[in-house]
């Protein structure tokens, strides 16, 4: 098989639509007779609901209906637990899931209380002001440590001390490692992750067709198949009566995998009730409360080292803010717990976390999904150890790398996919070497930094390592089909939010079938086009669905060759596939087009032989036994103004190993975007809640997404260690850019400002000019 496309920087199939305004996003769906919904949301974080009076809203012209929890009857029920707890001995887990409309109690600002359906969104929002709500406010649970005290209010009346979960995982014996250690370093770390803030907010359009008994839902979801299955169950329909379409989706980054959001429960139900299409589009203010986010963890961590800087063990006890509900189970804190181990040999590890309910929006995975928190802790511990032991920062990392001959490397704890945290493959030292070379590490420290310092400039260098668990199961599938016009259709169940699936899946199929990438039409996220699947999360689309496309295209290739051999009455070995057809090798003119073969595969007369199938198509599935572990090193040189703390990135390098590369251009885009989000998390973005659980900066003017002025040019290099867990050898890359930026910035800023000499450590993320001013002047 030739690989004309696999590995090449192929330009994207989907761009023509996206660049000309012809791509369909959820808010672009316009249907005759459509009603528009607006939700009344709580403006306090914690309260009992005394009454909701909707009659004035109902009376407003243009309003068709107003519903509260009472109107939902038996349809009102808490959402499903999406991810049950992994099989870890001795865990505490108290699942409490979100409700469609608050009934008796409010648990976070923005929780919906009522929905208005009206002729336009303008009228629906007018009517929200007519609804009278009486609430009895309760003290808000905001601070994690206070939440765990006996005297705290409780988010859920039946969950004492707000403990959502407690999980301990360990390997080896940290206690005895600590006794043997030459150095023990203990610190408290705070890591706060923010809101994913895709530029497209969420939205739902539902259309019940009473004559066809068919519900169609357009939704910004990352998991259309699960949404269909769940809606069918809730609404008493069979799955075939529900079609969920995730059309073009304007960025996801994790929170759009969450289901069932209240609006996803209410809008389809209301559409069936009114036998009319209904649209709801989240506005940006709603997005800050109604879409899930990530937030803070507090880690009390300790590292035990030998005199040579080798890690003997790590102990970590941390608190995790899970918000008002925990429908996504333990995924985020488990990722923190597992990813802390990084690319290092940590023979003794003892990690315990407590997930805490608070009166804040729900926490579910956002790009990195807790990995950042763990990476921050281990990378900062190594920086502090390097300083204390007077070992170079790069060298202490090198000394602790898992050696290449140790793979597969079992960390002996359980990962988010319920399997052992085992790294399938990796080779870390070449990644570090390449990063040091590209950033000019030695020269910067020996020459550049002293020279610039002599000029009065505050410049610093940072280097951070990480691994990323990607491409987890259970499975995805794909159907590849040759059309009579010679074009090839590829359908898969996952949704797409900008990852380039229309192109990378086409590249994979194009090489198998000898057609041009532009002749392959990929469909994602339409449950009527492909029935089965799990969704787009955990950097798994390319790995799992990509391999399913490969398997289906391979099987189809065999079908094509078999049929062509029958047509030419020759052996399959004498045939070659290319240029959209099949030819007999060495005989010019003996060619049949794929489209002609497709017609022959569906004859009007004659008999289809037993054991064969009509049509030129194949459906195959792929499920990896466990996730493929990608890895990388980021390096940065920054300059910082010691008075204003304005930060400038002078050079940024990413060296990354995600196995075999399908499309280097698309991969670069994934990494650039991840780094941009990492920079936002490290220095610009913070969700600021007050002691009443009010979010104080719920606008894009106050919650600062990085612009083109804050994100530097990023230099990327790759090493390639193919994954043995899938035939294509690929590992996921979606989250890699975002994961190590926090510790990288902390380290480089410390270096630039000479903070180690002043005994000041940066043990928290996000930083900001204000926060740096506080941290560096307090101890002067």
């Amino acid at each position, binding site marked *: 098989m030739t690989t004309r496309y696999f590995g090449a920087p192929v330009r994207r199939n989907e761009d023509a639509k996206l660049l000309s305004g012809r791509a369909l996003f959820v808010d672009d769906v316009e249907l005759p007779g459509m009603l528009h919904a607006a939700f009344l949301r709580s403006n306090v974080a914690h309260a009992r609901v005394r009454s909701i009076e909707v009659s004035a809203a109902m009376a407003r012209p243009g309003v068709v209906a107003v519903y509260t929890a009472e109107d939902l009857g038996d349809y009102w029920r808490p959402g499903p637990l999406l991810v049950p707890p992994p099989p870890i001995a001795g865990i505490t887990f108290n699942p409490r899931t979100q409700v469609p409309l608050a009934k008796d109690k409010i648990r976070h600002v923005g929780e919906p209380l009522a929905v208005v359906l009206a002729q336009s969104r303008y009228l629906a929002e007018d009517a929200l002001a007519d609804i009278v709500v009486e609430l009895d406010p309760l003290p808000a649970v905001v601070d994690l440590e206070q939440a765990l005290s006996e005297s705290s209010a409780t988010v859920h009346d039946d969950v004492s001390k707000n403990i959502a979960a407690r999980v301990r995982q360990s390997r080896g014996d940290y206690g005895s490692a600590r006794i043997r250690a030459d150095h023990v370093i203990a610190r408290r770390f705070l890591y706060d992750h923010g809101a994913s803030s*895709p530029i497209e907010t969420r939205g739902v359009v539902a259309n019940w067709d009473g004559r066809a008994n068919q519900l169609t839902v357009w939704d910004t979801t990352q998991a259309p198949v699960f949404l269909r299955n769940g809606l069918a169950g809730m609404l008493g329909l069979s799955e075939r009566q529900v079609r969920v379409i995730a059309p*073009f989706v304007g960025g996801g980054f994790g929170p759009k995998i969450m289901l069932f959001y209240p609006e996803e429960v209410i809008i389809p139900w209301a559409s069936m009730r009114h036998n009319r299409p209904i649209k709801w589009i989240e506005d940006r203010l709603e997005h800050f409360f109604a879409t899930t986010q990530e937030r803070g963890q507090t880690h009390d961590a300790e590292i035990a080292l030998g005199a040579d800087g080798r890690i003997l063990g790590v102990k970590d006890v941390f608190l995790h803010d899970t918000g008002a509900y925990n429908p996504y189970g333990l995924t985020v804190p488990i990722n923190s717990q597992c990813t802390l181990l990084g690319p290092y040999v940590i023979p003794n590890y003892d990690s315990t976390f407590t997930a805490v309910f608070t009166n804040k929006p729900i926490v579910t995975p956002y790009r990195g999904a807790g990995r950042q928190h763990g990476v921050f802790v281990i990378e900062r511990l190594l920086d502090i150890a390097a300083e204390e032991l007077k070992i170079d920062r790069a060298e202490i990392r090198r000394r602790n790398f898992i050696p290449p001959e140790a793979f597969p490397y079992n960390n002996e704890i359980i990962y988010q996919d319920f399997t052992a945290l085992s790294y399938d493959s990796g080779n870390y030292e070449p990644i570090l070497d390449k990063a040091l070379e590209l950033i000019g590490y030695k020269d910067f420290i020996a020459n550049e930094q002293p020279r610039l310092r002599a000029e009065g400039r505050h410049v610093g260098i940072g280097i951070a390592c990480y691994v990323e668990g990607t491409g987890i199961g259970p499975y995805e599938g794909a159907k590849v089909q040759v059309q009579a016009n010679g074009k090839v259709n590829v359908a898969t169940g996952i949704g797409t939010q900008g990852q380039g699936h229309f192109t990378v899946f086409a590249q994979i199929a194009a090489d198998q079938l000898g057609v041009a990438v532009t002749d392959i039409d990929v469909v994602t996220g339409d449950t009527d086009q492909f029935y089965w699947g799990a969704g787009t999360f955990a950097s798994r689309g390319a790995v799992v669905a990509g391999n399913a496309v490969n398997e289906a295209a391979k099987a189809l290739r065999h079908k094509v060759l078999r049929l062509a051999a029958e047509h030419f009455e020759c052996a399959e070995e004498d045939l070659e596939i290319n240029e959209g057809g099949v030819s007999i090798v060495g005989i010019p003119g003996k060619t049949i087009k794929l489209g002609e073969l497709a017609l022959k595969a569906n004859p009007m007369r004659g008999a289809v032989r037993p054991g064969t199938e009509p049509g030129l198509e194949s459906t195959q599935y792929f499920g990896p036994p466990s996730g493929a572990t990608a890895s990388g090193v980021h390096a940065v040189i920054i300059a910082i103004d010691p008075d204003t703390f304005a930060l400038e990135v002078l050079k940024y390098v990413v060296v990354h190993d995600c196995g075999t590369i399908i499309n280097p251009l698309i991969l670069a885009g994934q990494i650039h975007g991840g780094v941009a989000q990492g920079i936002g998390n490290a220095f610009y973005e913070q969700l600021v809640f007050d002691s009443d659980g009010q979010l104080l900066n719920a606008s894009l003017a106050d919650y600062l997404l990085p612009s083109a002025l804050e994100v530097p040019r990023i230099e990327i290099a790759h090493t390639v260690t193919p994954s043995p867990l899938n035939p294509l050898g690929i590992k996921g890359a979606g989250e890699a850019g975002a994961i190590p930026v926090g510790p990288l910035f902390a380290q480089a800023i410390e270096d630039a400002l000479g903070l180690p000499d002043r005994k000041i450590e940066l043990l928290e993320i996000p930083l900001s000019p204000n926060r740096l001013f506080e941290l560096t002047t307090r101890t002067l």
Partner: protein
Amino acid sequence: MADDFHDIAVIVNGKEYRRRVESRLLLSDFLRHDLLLAGTHVGCEHGVCGACTIILDDAAVRSCLTLAVQADGHSVMTVEGLADSPDEFHPLQHAMRECHGVQCGFCTPGILMSMKAFLNDVPSVDEARIREALSGNLCRCTGYQHIVDAVRMAVERMRSQAE
């Protein structure tokens, strides 16, 4: 308020539309839902993200901060009117594809319109000026680098076309 309507005439992408609109109707909603030109996207409705940027007469403006009635008697260009014909790309569109400046594509129409207006005013640009001009448009996917590359490529192409 509900019966506060105005008759407006707006030229959009070279075609005149006459409509009766409520005075509070946003230009973004008018374009998207009344004229069914859904290529203009709405990301924040408070003038920060820039996704809804269109060209009003010669200036790039936020259509979410503009009322439809303000466009009365004016000329609007949206992403649907950027290329000379539906089968063609404007050099900016071409370069955005070549440089992989598009991921989810939601912010893309606003970026195209901002850059179109920018390049009308500034025929010669370096990276710093491009980044400054781009800073009014938020993109959450690309990290901007490939967009900057695309704008540079488009500038070159437009210059060689002009010559």
